[in-house]
């Protein structure tokens, strides 16, 4: 059984016991433990079930490459599925649950999939479930979906919060092993701003466990010294427990920090001028039968657990390898007082320092030997030994509790590759390493990433530090800084003999064995699956990956990648580099979605723009409607009122007495300068330059495609200045539109613009009593003579500097008053007070819409949809024929925009006045198009019950509409139709007398 050793453990603090529960069972660990080391220390070898066959799975690795030890953490709003036990720091009171097993981890019905495995080979689902057709969605797929997945999602909203952190660095060093530390030190000494990030909880990487010495002293001493030195430097930032997850374009890098206080996690958004990838290497499993049995672990991981966490994987551990590094594990176990019954070395010639040391310790070494298969029920109880050169004839079975396997190491090239760097195959070390000739490039076209140490394919500890120094100096040089020269510290470790290729163990393993050789532990992909894919023509590496799902599990192929390539290569009679690798995509390790979203949740999800009177509306029954980024009162509900009743009341009161509207959101853009007239003439379809100061004119704006996109009233302020009102949604867009033309097309014109929208609160005072209430406030003569319709004036109203526009969007006598927003609420209050005598009542956007529809005024976004011209809306009068140019003029001359049968604006009256035409209803003529689609001849654009006329009214666009006034057409509605008569769009006060009061 696996257990905790009485002594040792460089990372644990035995004085701090931490309690946690595993599937309800209370267990204990120490501070400094990872969840995985704590589970192993408690003899929890079975930690999960595989994805497809639900086979028992145990911890294989000690880092982010772990494919099996995925668990559910916490509960409720703090529950996290698929948490990786090997990278999760143990915390007191942690609730840990196993996944993907029912009813329990030990007895999981899902294992039937395993017994059926030969029927469920790679891609089987593409070949069956074809009949009967309906069964796929109803029967087959639900079954597959239930079996799939790993953990369950939380059942409620996230209880924690997240945030971003923007950081800039000259050099970002990813990885705090000896190579990364050395690189950071060199870059910092060259005077650069350095950011050093390490995913684990402590510095030094593998150096300590690999018996490395630096300048004759243990690596740990050098690591401590270097870290202290870096911490003392102002220009250096160091961070542990933070993982560089993605290297994007132009030096943009994301990293995820497990924050100690405040947010749960922090997503770092780093801009680095240069990046040193010192991310180490990942050990490869060996491909032998039943290499997935719990208790079979990577040799490096076994070593880590023993040295860092004082965890014994079992009394007897068989080591199987094709390289020297695994001997370190045997030695470490022996030094911990444990037994290594044998080292099975696939290589025939075994010599060199490490094997010698192992021999000297009395560990039996079997050159040329291999594992024919692991044996045991649920977990390893022994290994069947064979010769590597053979086909798997079992020579003996060695009893053991654990198997430490090493198939060599693969550089962690993810960051290099994500950013577009290319790899080259190192035939001597049997690994893909960064090709310095084809690096990721930055905005300047030069290399922006330098790989260092093991990540650069420099595995021997000694050269590793040297390579880090070189990388740090290279980065400094690349940034034009002066790096140190001369000798840096030198690391040393025992020499290692060359690795030998073992892509199948034993090399002649027959299909029966290959069926049981696992490449992808989590997704259950075997050598046979990949071979089958190749045979069926899925031989491109991407095809094979997608067909077999090799490398698509939550470890993203960190363990399985090379093994799969080797099988493909063999099947195609090609070499591994000829096969190439799949693309490395971010993130390096999975990133919490909440962290990607950052702080923007709930109230901070998206800004809501509020006017100066927002608080008053909220306190007075406003039913809110989002309008672009603003919120506006849709209506003001009184106790006991429905929304519809409130809207009707607001309309009637405004037409009969006095209404007041917060119109502050309307865009207000000042256009001034000697060429201002010429400019507004170009922006608007009609002529504005002829407008006299003190007067207003309604104008339309089209895009270059000829379609209407905004409208509003323009007021001539003085000879050089126009104040352009836009729609609420349009103010920012229109202002940007103006600036774009001024800056990029007519930059020689003397015009300045300013968006004054936020400066002014604007209040519409509307209805027969409008003038009376304003006169009550006093300060400005607003008599019809002093201020005629479509005029504006300015002065002081109720002691507040104000501009008053006599314009009407309702057809009633109407004044729009603009005052500095700081005084908006004050004016509103005064108006409400003075208006009380005149039954003043505020109205919202819906009443506004109804009143404008009753008058046949168009609304951008209702009557327009980006494909409607002013001519379609009968606004030809607002389109100048004389101007030789304006935006949209040329486009409106094109064939499709001049078709005589275009849909044009009309009024629509249902024959039954109580029936309201439904929103978006289409008119049909009873014919059918070749495509089988019923031909439409028009549509409803606005439709309301008019409280004023006490009947339904609608506006719509109808083919040749204006030529067909009086005609009755049919609007499709469900199976039936609604009949409506085409009428003039102006339903109310056609003579327009009411606006004169």
């Amino acid at each position, binding site marked *: 059984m696996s257990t905790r050793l009485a002594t040792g453990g460089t990372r644990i603090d035995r004085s701090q016991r931490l309690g946690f529960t595993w599937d309800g069972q209370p267990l204990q660990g120490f501070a400094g433990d990872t969840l995985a080391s704590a589970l192993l220390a408690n003899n929890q070898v079975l930690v999960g079930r595989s994805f497809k066959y639900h086979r028992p799975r145990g911890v294989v690795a000690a880092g982010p490459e772990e494919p099996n030890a995925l668990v559910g953490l916490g509960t409720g709003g703090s529950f996290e599925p698929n948490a990786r036990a090997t990278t999760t720091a143990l915390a007191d009171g942690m609730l840990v649950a196993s996944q993907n097993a029912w009813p329990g981890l030990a007895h999981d019905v899902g294992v039937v999939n395993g017994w059926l495995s030969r029927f469920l080979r790679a891609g089987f689902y593409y070949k069956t479930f074809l009949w009967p057709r309906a069964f796929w969605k109803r029967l087959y797929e639900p079954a597959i979906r239930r079996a799939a997945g790993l953990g369950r999602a939380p059942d409620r909203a996230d209880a924690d919060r997240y945030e971003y952190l923007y950081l800039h660095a000259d050099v970002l060093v990813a990885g705090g092993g000896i190579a990364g530390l050395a690189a950071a030190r060199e870059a910092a000494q060259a005077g650069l701003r350095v950011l050093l990030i390490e995913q684990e909880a402590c510095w030094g990487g593998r150096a300590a466990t690999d018996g490395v010495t630096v300048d004759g002293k243990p690596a740990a001493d050098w690591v401590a010294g270097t870290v202290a030195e870096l911490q003392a430097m102002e220009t250096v*930032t160091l961070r542990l427990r933070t993982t560089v997850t993605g290297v994007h374009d132009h030096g943009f890098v994301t990293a995820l920090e497990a924050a100690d206080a405040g947010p749960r996690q922090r997503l770092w958004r780093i801009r680095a001028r240069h990046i040193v990838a010192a991310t180490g290497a990942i050990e490869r499993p060996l491909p032998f039968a039943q290499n997935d049995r719990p208790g079979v672990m990577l040799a490096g991981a076994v070593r880590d657990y023993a040295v860092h966490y004082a965890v014994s994987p079992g009394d007897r551990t068989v080591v199987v390898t094709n390289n020297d590094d695994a001997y370190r594990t045997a030695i470490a176990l022996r030094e911990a007082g444990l037994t290594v019954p044998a080292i099975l070395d696939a290589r025939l010639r075994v010599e060199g320092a490490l094997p010698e040391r192992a021999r000297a310790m009395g560990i039996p070494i079997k050159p040329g030997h291999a594992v024919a298969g692991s044996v045991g029920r649920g977990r390893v109880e022994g290994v069947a030994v064979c010769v590597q050169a053979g086909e798997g004839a079992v020579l003996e079975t060695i009893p053991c509790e654990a198997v430490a396997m090493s198939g060599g190491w693969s550089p962690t090239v993810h960051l290099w590759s994500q950013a577009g760097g290319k790899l080259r195959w190192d035939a001597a070390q049997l690994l893909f390493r960064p090709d310095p000739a084809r690096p990721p490039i930055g905005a300047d076209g030069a290399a922006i990433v330098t790989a260092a140490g093991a990540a650069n394919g420099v595995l021997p500890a000694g050269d590793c530090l040297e390579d880090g120094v070189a990388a740090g100096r290279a980065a400094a040089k690349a940034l034009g800084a002066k790096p140190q020269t001369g000798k840096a510290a030198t690391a040393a470790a025992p020499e290692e003999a060359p690795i030998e290729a073992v892509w199948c163990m034993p090399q002649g393993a027959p299909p029966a064995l290959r069926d049981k050789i696992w490449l992808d532990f989590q997704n259950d992909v075997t050598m046979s699956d990949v071979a089958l894919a190749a045979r069926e023509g899925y031989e491109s590496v991407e095809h094979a990956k997608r067909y077999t799902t090799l490398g698509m599990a939550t470890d993203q192929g960190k363990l399985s990648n090379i093994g799969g390539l080797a099988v493909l290569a063999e099947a195609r009679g090609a070499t591994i580099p000829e096969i190439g690798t799949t693309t490395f995509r971010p993130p390096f390790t999975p990133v919490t979605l909440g962290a990607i979203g950052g702080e923007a949740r709930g109230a901070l999800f998206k800004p809501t723009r509020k006017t100066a009177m927002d608080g008053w509306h909220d306190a007075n029954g406003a039913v809110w409607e989002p309008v672009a980024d603003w919120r506006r009162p849709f209506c003001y509900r009184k106790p006991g009122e429905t929304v519809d009743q409130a809207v009707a009341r607001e309309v009637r009161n405004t037409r009969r007495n006095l209404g007041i509207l917060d119109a502050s959101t309307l865009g207000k853009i000042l256009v001034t300068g000697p060429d201002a007239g010429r400019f507004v003439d170009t922006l608007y379809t009609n002529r504005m330059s002829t407008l006299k100061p003190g007067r207003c004119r309604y104008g339309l704006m089209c895009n270059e495609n000829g379609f209407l996109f905004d409208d509003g009233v323009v007021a001539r302020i003085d000879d050089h200045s126009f104040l352009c009102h836009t729609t609420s949604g349009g103010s920012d867009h229109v202002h940007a539109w103006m600036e774009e033309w001024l800056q990029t097309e007519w930059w020689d014109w003397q015009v300045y613009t300013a968006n004054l929208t936020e400066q002014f609160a604007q209040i519409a005072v509307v209805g027969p009593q409008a003038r009376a209430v304003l006169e009550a406030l006093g300060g400005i003569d607003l008599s019809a003579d002093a201020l005629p319709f479509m005029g504006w004036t300015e002065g002081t109203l109720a002691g507040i500097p104000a501009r008053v526009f006599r314009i009407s969007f309702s057809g009633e006598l109407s004044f729009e008053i603009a005052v500095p927003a700081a005084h908006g609420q004050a004016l509103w209050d005064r108006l409400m007070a003075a208006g009380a005598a005149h039954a003043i009542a505020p109205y919202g956007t819906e009443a506004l819409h109804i009143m404008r529809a009753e008058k046949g005024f168009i609304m951008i976004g209702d009557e327009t949809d980006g494909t409607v011209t002013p001519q379609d809306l009968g606004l030809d009068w607002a389109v100048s024929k004389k101007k030789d140019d304006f935006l949209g003029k040329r486009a409106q001359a094109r064939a499709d925009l001049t078709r005589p049968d275009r849909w044009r604006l009309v009024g629509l009256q249902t024959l039954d006045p109580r029936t309201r035409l439904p929103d978006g209803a289409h008119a049909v003529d009873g014919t059918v198009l070749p495509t089988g689609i019923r031909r439409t001849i028009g549509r409803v654009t606005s439709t309301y019950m008019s409280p004023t006329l006490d009947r339904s009214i609608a506006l719509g666009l109808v083919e040749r509409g204006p030529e067909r006034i009086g005609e009755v057409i049919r609007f499709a509605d469900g199976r039936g139709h609604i009949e409506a008569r085409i009428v003039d769009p102006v339903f109310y006060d056609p003579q327009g007398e009411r606006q004169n009061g």
Partner: protein
Amino acid sequence: MAEAMTALGGAATEGAIRVAEAPPTGMIALRADLSTRAVGKAVKEATGIALPRALRIETAKDRSVAWMAPDEVLVFCPWEKAAGLAADLSEGLGDTPHLVADMSSARALIDLSGPGWREVLAKGTPVDLAPGAFGPGDFRRTRLGQVAVAIWASGPERAHLICFRSVAGFVFDWLSMAAARDSLPGLWR
């Protein structure tokens, strides 16, 4: 005349730093070709301050002039002096093509005090706020979270944030969250 209401009514909060809306402040937008002598002269005469260099803000007595763009500055002054100052600027510029607008109500001015202001803002802006990169007198228009802001460093432990009035509430809430106690990343000593 009624007293001016700022966007947040002077709201304030204490966390890792202090976040407080400034009292009503005069803000005048001036657009004109800053490279012409006439403009520099007019600004100097009206405010007593020479035009700032790009990305800088200059202060003298109760006034400051911030560089917004090659053809725009934002002038800060006491609330009650804004109207007069705007008139002076316009007058001083005479025939030189220009635009002067009193924007005192259009924006909110939020004061940040405490050494942690850099780290609070670093949670939301792509600007390099490291002490060596952004210091007193620097004025930078950028974004904070999802909204447009201008950041004004007025001292080692003091900065101001300028945003549009309609989103001031959102920005204040954002700052309150970012400045929560014990939530600073501890970057700059």
